[in-house]
């Protein structure tokens, strides 16, 4: 089954990107996490016809992609893969909302089309920001940031373990699936009668593995507490990063920058 392995490959790719060594990569994960959250809240809080106000927000992901040398087309492809959902959500708008909203010369654009594009842009921006965060920081970095931001340790540890064993278990699952499909000669269908023991078997192996991991932990003096030593420096750079982006977001949220920009341009003619 190709999809399972593709997922794995995808996670690995993003993780590799996160091991880059640009200034943005080196920034404390907390700064990036907080900025991303502010960004998303600001974008989501925009109204559905406010396309023009959304545009300046593109600058943030673009700046991150450029500053950190992230592969643009890879990220665009990832956004594209999940976009059918957004398209399906939005495609009804033009049908339902036919009130003209914009008139450019002879052509009039209905409110439905405007809100359709607004949903698409909103989707691309929020998804893009989350992807950029993970590609800049890595999952472990995000977890460390959470820990430093006082998210309860058991939850953070849980996230780390989940992430660690995701790779092991997905590989195990795809081996089992491959073994099944090599011996079942009827098309590619998985019948329920096969599905259950396959999954049950995987679950039993998982439980055994958990037991072995626990033993391995005990053997190295595990006493119920996991200590994470990760010195992080939240310095001037981080403060400036958060503050300047936040200022920009607030500015873009409050004033319609493109309109101002546009009228200045128009003023010349």
């Amino acid at each position, binding site marked *: 089954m190709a999809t399972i392995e593709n997922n794995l490959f995808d996670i690995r790719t993003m993780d590799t990107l996160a091991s880059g060594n640009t200034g943005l990569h080196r920034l404390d994960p907390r700064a990036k996490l907080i900025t991303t959250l502010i960004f998303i809240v600001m974008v989501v809080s925009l109204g559905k016809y406010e396309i023009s106000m959304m545009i300046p927000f593109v600058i943030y992901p673009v700046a991150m992609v450029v500053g950190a040398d992230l592969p643009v087309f890879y990220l665009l492809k990832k956004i594209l893969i999940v976009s059918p959902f957004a398209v399906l959500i939005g495609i009804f708008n033009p049908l339902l909302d036919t009130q003209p909203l914009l008139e450019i010369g002879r052509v009039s654009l209905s409110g439905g089309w405007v809100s359709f594009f607004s949903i698409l842009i909103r989707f691309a921006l929020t998804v893009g920001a989350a992807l950029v965060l993970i590609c800049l920081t890595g999952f472990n970095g995000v977890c460390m940031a959470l820990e430093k931001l006082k998210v309860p340790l058991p939850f953070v540890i849980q996230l780390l373990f989940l992430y660690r064993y995701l790779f092991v278990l997905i590989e195990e699952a795809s081996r089992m699936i491959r073994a099944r499909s090599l011996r079942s000669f009827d098309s590619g269908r998985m019948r329920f009668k096969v599905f259950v023991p396959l999954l049950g078997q995987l679950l039993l192996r998982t439980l055994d593995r958990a037991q072995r991991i626990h033993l391995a932990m005990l*053997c190295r003096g595990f006493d119920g507490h996991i*200590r994470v*030593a990760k010195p992080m420096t939240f310095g001037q750079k981080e403060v400036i990063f958060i503050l300047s982006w936040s200022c920009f977001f607030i500015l873009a949220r409050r004033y319609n920058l493109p309109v101002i920009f546009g009228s200045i341009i128009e003023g010349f003619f």
Partner: protein
Amino acid sequence: MSHHIVKADNLYYTYPDGTMGVNGISFTITHGESVALVGANGAGKSTLLLHLNGCLVSAKGEIRIGDYQLTPKTMKAARRSVGMVFQDPDDQLFMPTVFDDVAFGPMNLGLPEQEVKDRVILALETVGAAHLKNRPPYKLSGGEKRAVAIATILAASPDILVMDEPTSNLDPLSRKRLISLLQTFEHTKIIATHDLDMALDVCERTIVLHKGEITADGPTLDIFNNEDLLLKSGLEKPLRMQEYKPILANLKKKTHHHDHDHNHHHHH
């Protein structure tokens, strides 16, 4: 200075589902000795290893690590002196990066940060994996995983190393590297393995297990020369001690004298 001694006295263990684990096992391993634990699948090797630091507790009999008898009270001290390397490195490397993983043991000992760091680096250098320290475990090759797994144990500076199948799933070069690494360790070593050639290189003494019981305990070379004993315990001579039979010759013989089955040339 007797704290590198491992002594088992009449151990019995049966799994909850009724499978026999070990059935009356006794031995003494002294300071600095290097012992191979060999036997067919299901002979009780892993079960025995899990007893050595209290992961399993025998129904009867006792274990002594150094001066202590292994009891729930002395468990912590025992685990500090017995370092256990599991068969599947994926079970052992559970932290997000190699560094964190190797630091796990020392951190649990409550050492100051700088010493933890020093120990991690030293352990990683010992196994030749210092360059891997910031990698996540899933980005390591099989050989690297094994090396790091050993480093995680070394970092807690145990006196006794217990290993379950350290050479399994390694490519020939990684295996060779591991063997020379093991030869440099001065710890007391107990190694459960099917790789008898490795045992020949690393261990001067061998204990043979069969169906939960010890069938032989003595110098490695003597035991590997005793073909009857090996055969009875579901083993065969280390490949290095067997005579080389080219496949081509084998094939020829088969086609020429069809009714002389190959039992014949198995024996010379």
